[in-house]
C-alpha cells in the first residue's frame, strides 16, 4: 500500500474526512505482521528444543508433511476472501487419490489414472459450485454435506484397504530440485503466482471487491457468480493435485487420506489473517502461516508431545487466531 504521491485536490476540513492512520501503523499493524512475528518466535522456541531447526534442509524436509494442505490453503484463502468457504477439500483429496489408485489398479496406465484423479477433483469442485452459486445454498452447509459425501465415496471405493502405487511414482517428497523438495517448491511457486494474481491483477482485485460487498460488485458489472464458481472449481483442482501428492508421499492410498485436513487448512487461512467474513486476507499471510503451522507441528513432535496434545493445540490455535483476527479488523474499522 502506498500513500498518495500527488497532492489531494483540496484541503481537508474537519467535517469532511477522518484523518488517515499514520503510515507506520498501516504497514505494521496488520495480521500478516502478527503471523510473521509468531513465525519468528516459533522458530526461536523450536530451535531451543532441537538444534535441527536451524538447519534449512531439515525445515524443508519437515515442511513436506504439510505442503499438500498448504497448497490447498492458498486457494482456500481466495475462496474465503471472496465471501465463501469450502470445507470439503480434504475429502476431495482422498476421493481423487482413491479414484486414481483404483483405476490404476484396474489396469489404466498411470498417466491416465492421474488424469482421472484430477478430473474427479475438478468435478467435485464444480458440484460445490453448482450447489452454492447455481442453487444459492449456503456454502458452509453444502461443503459439510459434500465433505461427508466425498469421504464416503472414497470409503466405498477403497474400503478398508491401502491401495499401493507403483514405485516410480512414490516419494515425491524426496525428489529435489535445487535442493528443495518438489512439493515445497510447488508451494512456493504457487504462492508466488497466486500472490501476484491476488494483489496485482484485476481478478484478484475483484475477489476482494466481491468479498467486501457482493451487491456493490454486481452493480459495478463484476461477474461475481462466475468468479466464485471458478474459485470453487480451482479448489477442487488444487485438492486433487494435493491428494495425488499425498498419495505419492505415503506410497499408498486409503480412504482416510488427509483426515482432519479441513481444520489445518482453515487454520492456516485464519492464522494468516484472512477475515472469515470475507473481503480481507492475503496470500502472503497464508504463506507465512503455513510455515508457522509446520514449525509448530514439527516442534511439537520433536518435543515429544502426543498427537493428541498437538490436536488440542491446533484447536486452541484456531479459536485464538480467529479472535485475534476479528479484533484487529474490527479495530481498524471506523
Amino acid at each position, binding site marked *: *500500500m*502506498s*500513500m*498518495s*504521491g*500527488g497532492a*489531494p*485536490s*483540496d484541503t*481537508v*476540513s474537519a*467535517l*469532511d*474526512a*477522518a*484523518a*488517515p492512520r499514520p503510515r507506520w501503523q498501516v504497514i505494521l499493524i496488520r495480521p500478516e505482521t502478527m503471523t510473521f512475528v509468531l513465525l519468528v518466535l516459533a522458530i526461536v522456541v523450536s530451535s531451543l528444543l532441537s538444534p535441527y531447526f536451524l538447519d534449512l534442509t531439515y525445515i524443508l524436509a519437515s515442511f513436506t508433511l504439510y505442503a499438500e494442505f498448504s497448497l490447498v490453503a492458498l486457494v482456500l484463502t481466495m475462496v474465503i476472501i471472496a465471501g465463501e468457504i469450502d470445507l470439503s477439500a480434504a475429502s476431495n483429496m482422498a476421493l481423487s487419490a482413491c479414484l486414481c489408485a483404483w483405476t490404476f489398479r484396474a489396469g489404466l496406465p498411470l498417466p491416465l489414472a492421474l488424469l482421472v484423479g484430477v478430473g474427479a477433483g475438478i468435478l467435485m469442485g464444480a458440484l460445490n459450485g453448482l450447489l452454492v452459486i447455481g442453487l444459492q445454498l449456503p456454502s458452509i452447509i453444502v461443503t459439510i454435506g459434500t465433505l461427508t459425501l466425498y469421504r464416503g465415496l472414497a470409503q466405498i471405493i477403497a474400503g478398508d484397504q491401502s491401495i499401493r502405487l507403483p514405485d516410480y511414482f512414490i516419494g515425491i517428497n524426496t525428489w529435489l530440485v535445487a535442493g528443495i523438495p518438489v512439493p515445497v517448491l510447488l508451494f512456493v511457486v504457487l504462492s508466488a503466482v497466486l500472490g501476484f494474481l491476488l494483489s*496485482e*491483477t*484485476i*481478478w484478484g*482485485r*475483484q475477489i*476482494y*471487491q466481491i468479498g*467486501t*460487498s457482493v*451487491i*456493490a*460488485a*454486481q*452493480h*459495478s*458489472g*463484476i*461477474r461475481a457468480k462466475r468468479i466464485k464458481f471458478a474459485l470453487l472449481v480451482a479448489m477442487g483442482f488444487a485438492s486433487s493435485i494435493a491428494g495425488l501428492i499425498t498419495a505419492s508421499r505415503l506410497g499408498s492410498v486409503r480412504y482416510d487420506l488427509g483426515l482432519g485436513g479441513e481444520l489445518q487448512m482453515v487454520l492456516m487461512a485464519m492464522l494468516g489473517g484472512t477475515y472469515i467474513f470475507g*473481503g*480481507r486476507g492475503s496470500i502472503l499471510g497464508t504463506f507465512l502461516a503455513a510455515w508457522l503451522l509446520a514449525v509448530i507441528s514439527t516442534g511439537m513432535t520433536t518435543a515429544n508431545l502426543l498427537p493428541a496434545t498437538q490436536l488440542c493445540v491446533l484447536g486452541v490455535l484456531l479459536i485464538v487466531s480467529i479472535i485475534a483476527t476479528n479484533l484487529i479488523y474490527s479495530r481498524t*474499522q*471506523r
Partner: protein
Amino acid sequence: MVETASAMPDVPLMAARGITKSFASIEVLRDVDLDLRRGEIHALLGENGAGKSTFAKILAGVHRPTRGTLTLNGAQVEVLNPIVAQRLGITLIHQEPICFPDLTVAENLVLGQKGGSPLARVPWAEMTRNARQLMDLLGVKIDVSKTMRGLSIADQQMVEIARALASDSRLIIMDEPTAPLTPKEVETLFAIARRLRDEGRTIVFISHRLEEVRILCNRVTIFRDGNKVATEDIQSFTDADIIRQMIGRPLREYMKKHGTTIGEVALKVEGLTLPGVFFDISLEVRKGEIVGLGGLVGAGRTDVARAIFGVSPAASGKISINGKPVQISDPSQAIALGLAFVPEDRAAAGIFRTLPVEENITAAVPGKIAPSGVIRRSLERVLAEDSVRKLRIRLASFRQPIGELSGGNQQKTILARWLLTEPRVLILDEPTRGIDIGVKAEFYDMIGELAASGRAILLISSELPELLALCDRVLVMSEGRITANIPRERATQESIMNAAVPRSTREAAA
C-alpha cells in the same frame, strides 16, 4: 361516545421540546416542539427526508435525540430503546412490520411481554383464546394459529396493532400504514384507529395521502427540511395550504443550461413489466435530455432502474439503446451498452467500504486500469486524480478506505466511478440524498454539464425542487405505473405531487 381531541385539554400525553437529531454531521431534525394530546389522531406530514419519520422513531426509541426532552404524562422520560418504549406504552408500527415470521400470530402477540419465568409453561390455550379475542376486538378475521409468514401485509399490520393493544399502549405510531392496503383494508384500519382514539389513546399517523389524513385525523403537524413548520387542526388547512407548507421554499436558481441540443432517443423502454412491482412502463430519454422520474417511496422507480440496468430484469417488455433493441440480463451487459447506474443506497449497493478510494473509483472500468490483466497502478492513479479534481472530491489520501469519507464525497466517488465508464445513458437514483446543501449545488452543476455533453440522463428523485430545476421533462410514477409525463413548462410542485399520490387520493381530489 365520540369526542374529539379538543374536548380533552390538560396535560398532553407526550410533550416534545427542542428535539434535535444529527446523523454524523448532518442535521435531520432541528428544535422540534410538539404536543400530542390524549384521544386524538395526529398526522405527521412532510416530504421524504423532511424529518417526520425520524421524529417518530425518536418517540419510539429507535433513535435517541441529540438534544431535547420528551415528557410523558408530565414526567420527563428517556426512551432508550424500543423495549423501554413498549414499557412506557409507546408502540411503533413499521411499514414492513417486524415479526418472527416462522411463529404463529398468537405467539407473536405474546413474545416480549413482561413477566413469567423462562421455564414457565406456555399457556397455549389461553394464548390462543386471548389472541382470538383481540382479533375479534379489532374486527378482523385472522387465524391466530397460522404463521406470520403466510399473512398479507395488511394482516401483519393488524397483528402489530393487536400487540399494541395487548400491551395497553397509549401512544401508537403508524408509519405510512395505508400504502400497501386495499381500500377496504384501509376502512377497517380507520375504524380501529377511531375506536382507539375514543378510548383515549393517541394515534400518530404518518402518511402522504392527504384525503385520508383529512378523513381520519384531528390535527396535523407539517415538517419541512428538519423543522416543524405548523401544527393545526385539520380543518384550518386546505389541501393547497398543506402542500405549500410542505414544500414551500424559495426555488433555487439552478436553471438548467439552455442551449443544449436535444438529440435522438438514447434509451427507450416499452411495456416493461414485473408483476407485483411495476406495470407497462414506457419511457424515452434523448441525448442531452434530463428526464426526471418522480413519485413517492415505494412507487417502483428504483425497481424500474434496476430492471433496465439488469440487476433484477423485468419479466416482459423491450429495451432499446440508440434505436437498437437489446437484452440486458446482467449489469456487465448494461455497462457494455453504455448504461450507468448510480444506486440509491450507496452503503449497501455502491461503496466498497473498506477498500481504498481510488479502487472504488476504478471499480467499473477494469479494462482501463488493467488492459492485459495486470493492474497498472500509475494508470489508476491518473484516472483517480482526474476524477478527484473534476468532481472536487475531498479526501486525505487516495489509499484511504472510502468509508472514512463524508457522505457527499462518497457519493461523488460513486459518480466518478460511473463517469469513467463514459456512459451514453446515466441513471441517477436519489443522487443527492443525505448530502449537505453546498455539495448538492455542486451535483446539480455536474448533472447539468453531463447533459450538455450529450449524455441522456434519467434522474430519479423525491425532491421536487430538484426535479423542477434540472429536468426537461418529469415522469411521475405511482403504485407501479407511470401516471404523468410533464414537460418543463408545465411542471410545478403541485402537478408532480398530484400525480404521485395514490389513485384513491387523486380521484377524491378530482
